[in-house]
């Protein structure tokens, strides 16, 4: 199916209800990407709970398998599965990050990470599952080491952002950490060696063609050589770096602005996610989901991106999170202020 042929639609597969407050975030379990394994994802909400959803192989419909409650005392803002799919980390406004383990179908809270002074807004595992990062309104980013027996030790508290840090995300292949903030910047954190100190090696701010308002989210393409950021300034920006050089141990290579997608959104963009095939999904405060792809324009030097499709009224209220399902099918999940989660399939028009 050629993406740029223009015959595509985002078909709603199912609307999942259950949360009793806005759904902030969702995360697909990476271990369930294989073809014959029922797909699983977690969602987290202002109702202080986390719900685990699973696709029934026989009926192809999604059911809520578990509700993780009585642990967080405030909104659960973000969740992330470890690369092995064994653990789930949940970040909450109650200033803690809980670690859950699936023990025979039941999820147990096996650890609670404390330290942030106030609301924790995001949590991310590195590619190998050896490190965890969290961030919050206290302007800091914390790096935790994952130790045997579900123990977590904070190895460093990174200062640098001048305001609330909205999201953290590890690079998909290398141990480089990215954070985005209410201070309008994205910071890149790097450590020279495994035992070294982490420091901010780059700040993507207005002077580097960066955003002019809060940066809410960022996502990498499959190769890890491109990055997309989205902001309250109504634009999305694509950045690129010389990954080959970095992977070959040649030290840090900076990220450079590639292009800005503006004029497509008229309200804050809360979430972006890049599929393995290169489709960028965005979720915004105008209740819509948009898909973008790189334009195949041989005559231009730089890359440019175009709108593939816009799903208006994807939800009844703001879309807070969009996440592509890992795996073969073109499935997208979206979470909204309307308290629902929707599963979509990208397909050709009938």
């Amino acid at each position, binding site marked *: 199916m050629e993406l740029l042929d223009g015959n595509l639609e985002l078909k709603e597969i199912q609307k999942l209800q259950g949360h009793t407050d*806005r759904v902030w975030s969702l995360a697909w379990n990476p271990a369930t990407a294989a073809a014959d394994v029922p797909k699983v994802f977690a969602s987290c909400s*202002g109702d202080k709970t986390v719900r685990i959803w699973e696709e029934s192989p026989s009926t192809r419909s999604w059911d809520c398998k578990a509700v993780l409650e009585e642990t967080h005392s*405030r*909104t659960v*803002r973000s969740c992330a599965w470890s690369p092995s799919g064994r653990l789930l980390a949940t970040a909450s*406004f109650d200033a803690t990050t809980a670690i859950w383990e699936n023990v025979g179908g039941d999820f147990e809270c096996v650890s609670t990470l404390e330290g942030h002074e*106030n*609301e924790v*807004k995001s949590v991310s595992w590195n590619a190998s599952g050896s490190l965890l990062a969290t961030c919050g*309104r206290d302007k800091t980013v914390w790096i935790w080491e994952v130790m045997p027996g579900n123990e977590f030790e904070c190895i460093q508290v990174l200062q640098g952002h001048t305001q*609330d840090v*909205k999201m953290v995300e590890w690079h998909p292949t290398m141990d480089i950490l990215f954070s985005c903030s*209410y201070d309008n910047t994205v910071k890149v954190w790097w450590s020279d060696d495994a035992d070294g100190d982490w420091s901010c090696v780059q700040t993507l701010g207005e002077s580097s063609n960066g955003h002019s*308002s*809060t940066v809410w989210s960022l996502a990498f393409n499959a190769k890890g050589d491109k990055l997309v950021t989205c902001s*309250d300034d109504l634009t999305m920006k694509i950045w690129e770096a010389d990954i080959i050089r970095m992977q070959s141990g040649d030290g840090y290579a900076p990220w450079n602005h590639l292009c800005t997608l503006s004029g497509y959104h008229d*309200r804050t963009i809360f979430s972006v996610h890049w599929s393995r095939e290169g489709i960028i999904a965005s979720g915004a*405060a*105008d209740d819509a989901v948009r898909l973008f792809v790189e334009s195949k324009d041989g005559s231009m030097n730089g890359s440019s991106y175009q709108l593939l499709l816009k799903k208006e009224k994807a939800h*009844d*209220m*703001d879309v807070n999170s969009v996440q592509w399902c890992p795996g073969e099918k073109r499935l997208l999940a979206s979470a909204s*202020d*309307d308290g629902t989660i929707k599963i979509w399939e990208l397909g050709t028009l009938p």
Partner: protein
Amino acid sequence: MVSGLINANPIVYEKKERRVRNEAAVPDEYAVEPIDQLEIFYHIRDIKDPEHPYSLEELKVITEDAIEVDNERSYVRVTFTPTVEHCSMATVIGLCLRVKLMRSLPSRYKMDIRVAPGTHATEAAVNKQLNDKERVAAALENPNLLDMVDECLAPSYA
């Protein structure tokens, strides 16, 4: 207590007369009724100022003209004028406006709340906070702040 007030002597204005709205003889319950400036104003005019026993209308913090409504786009913008330029209560007032409208308008409405340009020393910072829904959500989970907001909103539910 009095010495701690930001603005100990606010100017109090007369309240506008309250017009009775003419209801249609047989209201169509399923019609999507357009919401106008006056209706939005009715929801917020009696909100009490956090510091003084006067309403936002009486202190001219909000006026009917400072409300913009676009029914087709389900969009509302309220511009308010703090009584003093350095008012640290500006974010509380903004929060009260947002909460009252959130509770009173259909959920499809998008809202922008801002201070009138030139009326506050840190206008951009206040506006940014008031329109960051994550910050608003976290603030409203703070019981002390929520109590303060509910106290200010109480007279507006009559």
